[in-house]
């Protein structure tokens, strides 16, 4: 267990080399890849998310931790059981049409993946139709919408409306976020959730998965 704790810690520190070495060492010790993923990688990223939420660490620290996790995953992936732990859920993520900003959206993707979610990232400038298409074809439970521009915020309402129009409101929840986006705005357009920041977005997605 100490090995995994150390690995988790090195991931939080964003030390790619140490994470690679620790992953190899843990596998050599005979630890199960699924346990390494859960107890070192996901546990480490969960702490990273919480610390970011409290602004004890900032975006650069989160990005470095995510990269360290990626470095470890490259070694771990071939060893993961194909029928191992199912993802915590499937989320289609993107920045709404007309908006090309992706830093915040990428951060949400990192923390969602770190929390064990499968993330289908559609990138930026994504139309309501494309969000729906992707969510339906992937069987996603959640659509996550990002906007940095106040002028593109109304696009979020279009996605919510389209989900309702297609009668998917029970199956697909919509969560919104981005610097100018508030709870009042989210409520106003009938979104199922709002993330103040990336960490609270992950908490909200988890709550939506549990039917809250």
């Amino acid at each position, binding site marked *: 267990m100490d090995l995994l704790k150390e690995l988790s810690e090195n991931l939080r520190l964003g030390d790619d080399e140490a994470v690679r070495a620790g992953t190899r060492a843990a596998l050599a010790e005979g630890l199960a890849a699924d346990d390494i993923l859960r107890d070192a990688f996901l546990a480490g990223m969960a702490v990273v998310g919480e610390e970011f939420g*409290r*602004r*004890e*660490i*900032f*975006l*650069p*620290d989160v*990005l*470095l931790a995510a990269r360290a996790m990626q470095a470890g995953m490259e070694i771990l992936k071939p060893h993961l059981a194909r029928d191992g732990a199912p993802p915590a859920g499937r989320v289609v993520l993107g920045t709404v*049409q*007309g*908006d*090309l*900003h992706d*830093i915040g959206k990428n951060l949400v993707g990192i923390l969602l993946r770190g929390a064990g979610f499968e993330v289908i990232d559609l990138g930026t*400038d994504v139309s309501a139709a494309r969000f729906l298409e992707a969510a339906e074809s992937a069987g996603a439970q959640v659509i996550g919408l990002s906007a940095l*521009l*106040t*002028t*593109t*915020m*109304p*696009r979020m*309402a279009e996605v919510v409306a389209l989900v309702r129009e297609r009668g998917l409101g029970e199956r697909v929840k919509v969560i919104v976020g981005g610097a*100018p*986006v*508030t709870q*009042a*705005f989210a409520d*106003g*357009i009938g979104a199922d959730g709002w993330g103040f920041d990336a960490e609270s977005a992950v908490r909200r997605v988890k709550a939506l998965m549990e039917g809250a």
Partner: protein
Amino acid sequence: MSREPFLERLQSGPAILGDGAWGTMLFARGLPTGDAPERVCLERPELLTGIAGLYLEAGAEVVTTNTFGANPERLGLHGLTDSLEEICHEAVAAIRRAVGERAWVSGSIGPTGVLLVPFGRLDPAAASAGFARQAAALAAAGADLLCVETMTDLAEAELAVRAVREAAPGLPVVATMSFEATRRGFFTVMGATPAKAAVRLEVAGAHAVGANCGDGDTMAGIAREFRAHCALPIAVRPNAGLPTLVDGALVHPESPEAMAARVPELLEAGVHLLGGCCGTTPVHIRAMRQALDGKEWKREQ
């Protein structure tokens, strides 16, 4: 030149009033979302001249160019990189047509929107070259000052200030970052504090430092922190709150009166240059003008 030099006034007072939002005004006039706002400079400069006139009339002494994203990275997203110089030229000219010498024209320089290595793919040398190109173009077009604004990464802000000073050595540079209030104090999302920003932006060569694109109620606190850590004039441009949806339209909640009511506190906190960011309109600026005029300006130190 009928106006006194910007820098002299900035340093000797009274406090200078800038303008408000540009995106808000442009989108209200039908600018399509998704396209580069800078394309307006090429295709409908008369819109810019019109808005500049409204701000001048409202009492703004500094009017900002519509060049926030006129850097190679952001223009590249719209295939406009080759038009950077023309955009900057038209942007300054459009404001000048409205304000003449009755207001200073401030060349807006926003962030690249891409993270610098090692956190992202942007090479510092390329970022510097881009900022220098934008600054040189704005200077050549006749801007009176440059404002490096809405920065969250202190490394990018420093690099921008250095590049801008070198490319446009004759122009004063105002450098502002976007902070949020956390339980542990004011930080940008990249982790910069006003204290660090004050010291490092001063060293980088900024003539004024401060904050923009943040909540109005954080600005006095941020200004005091800047004041405590550097001797430069302080600049702040708060948002008119965060927008909500009212009858299907986005509305910024902060009234002109509310923004004007903060002016005395900002002056007491040592602010020398103020204006508004997202959601502030000529009506807000007029209210701030009246608040400023009714107030005896006190010189700091």
